[in-house]
Each structure stands twice: as C-alpha cells, then as structure tokens.
C-alpha cells in the first residue's frame, strides 16, 4: 500500500498539498499543532497512488512518498 509521511516539524500548514492532491487525500489537522505553532497537514486515507504531486508541491520538503513495490 502506497502512502505519504509528513514530517510534522517541517510542515508549516500551508495547505498546498491539500489543494493539489488529485484524490483529496490530505487535510489540515484541526487539533495538531507543531512546535512552531503551525496547524499541520495529515493524510486521511489509504488510497494514495504515490503520484507524488503533493510532495512535489510542498515548499518545505515535508512529504516523503513511498510506494508498495510490485511483486
């Protein structure tokens, strides 16, 4: 199963990933704030295709994308 990992401390809560994920799999947390005080983005699904669009658009390189290897 492919997914993304968001580095909580790198994320600045800009919501750019949220806006560009073609499947709208990311949302802004309404409770989670990091040490710098930013409300952060979180992954909310398991249907990620590892298209990496979110990561490519993330200005802070906060997103790592992993893909399930084909067997």
């Amino acid at each position: 199963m492919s997914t993304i990992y968001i580095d909580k401390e790198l994320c600045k809560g800009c919501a750019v990933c949220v806006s560009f994920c073609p499947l709208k799999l990311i949302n802004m947390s309404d409770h989670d704030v990091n040490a710098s005080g930013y409300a952060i983005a979180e992954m909310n699904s398991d249907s990620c295709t590892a298209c990496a669009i979110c990561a490519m658009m993330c200005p802070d390189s906060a997103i790592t994308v992993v893909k399930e290897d084909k067997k």
Partner: protein
Amino acid sequence: MSVVYKKSKMLTNVPLNYCPGCTHGIVHKLVAETLEEINAEGNVIGIAPVGCAVFAYDFFNCDMQQVAHGRAPACATGIKRCNPDKIVFAYQGDGDIASIGTAEIVHAAARGENFTVVFINNAIYGMTGGQMAPTTLVGQKTTTSPFGRGKMQGNPIKLTEMLATLDGPSYLARVSVSDPANVRKAKKAIKKAFENQVNGKGFSMVEVLSTCPTNWHMTPVQALDFVKNEMTKVFPLGVYKDC
C-alpha cells in the same frame, strides 16, 4: 516499499525559514534535485542573494557564498573565472536582480559567463516587508505603491525578454511553479540551464514566477492562483533564447 519522493540530499537538514506556502521552497527543491541528478555533489558553489533567499546558504548542501544586494552575477563571475571546472549558480530575487543589480546581470549575460542564474520573480520585495519591485504588476498595491502601481512608477521590467536581446546568453526561459504541470516544466528548464553550464555553453538563466503569500496578503493557494491568472499574463511563460 520504495521511496518515490523524498527531500533531496542537495538540501541540508536545516528547515527552510520561508513563510508557509512560499514557493521559494519549491524552487530550492528543483535546484537541489537538479544538482543531484547531474552528479554535481562536491563540485558546486552557490550564491545566496540579499532577499528572502539570503538564508539559502543554510539550505543548499554545497559550498555557498552570500553576497551584497544585487551583485550575485559579479560574485559568480569572480568565482567561475577562477574556478572554471566548478558548477556555479546564483539564486536571486526580482529586487535583487532586476532593480539594484540590473547592471550586473546584464553584463554577466552579455559576457556570456558560464554559470547558471535562478531568478525568483514574486513581483515584490519580500524580505523588507512588501515594497514595490521592478516586476510589480500595474495596479498592484504594495507598501510603497499604496494606491496601486501607477503611471509615475513605471511599468514592470521583463528581464528575460531584455536579456534575450543580447548575444551573450545561451539559454533564457520563464517558468512558473503554480501547479504540478508547471513545476515539472520548471524543473526541466532549470536542469537544462545547469547542463548548459556543464557543457560550457555559457550564460543560462531561468526566471521562475513565484509567490509571496505574506506580502500579497493571500493564502498560499490563492497566491498560486494569482501567479497562474495574473502574473503569467504580464510575464508570458516560454523559452526566450536557446542556442
């Protein structure tokens, strides 16, 4: 499981200090990824401008110089002439490159200096708090054009078009990072600008239309839309020189 995308090793571990959603960060990534792809690690000298990207000396994983406002092309000339085998790049904002540093970029381009310039056009002075830039759009409000840029403040300068009149440059392009498709194109242009240097083709510059959500008083996503809908009208994307 394999990693499809992660932070480039040509970026350091230091978190970027740009405002949330500022596309300086995207461009940093593209430059870093390019350096990685052309195997330049351990062979690069970068130049940070005066502007929001001044801290770039903390972010790129290579030797870096920070130079006076607008003078990056002069600095790069000094470095590259004395180190012709190294990959040298200057990263500059619009105020830096197209206002105070006009003479330096024009002449580096005219000489055809063999280095690469990444020019971040965000139509504003970000670092100093949102003053008018040479690229500010007509009608755009800034702290020094409070009634909108008007007749007495002149028209935006199109640096890339201007440099295209010179014989020196080998590659000049304008790209944007307003959406994934454009980010991909931007990456290609930046890569070409560096490959040209490797191949000794001379001066290459990529202008990147970029955002400043903070001083535009927009959300990051609104700002990306503004680039797409407004800025590209005044600053058409495309390759302006390639030889």
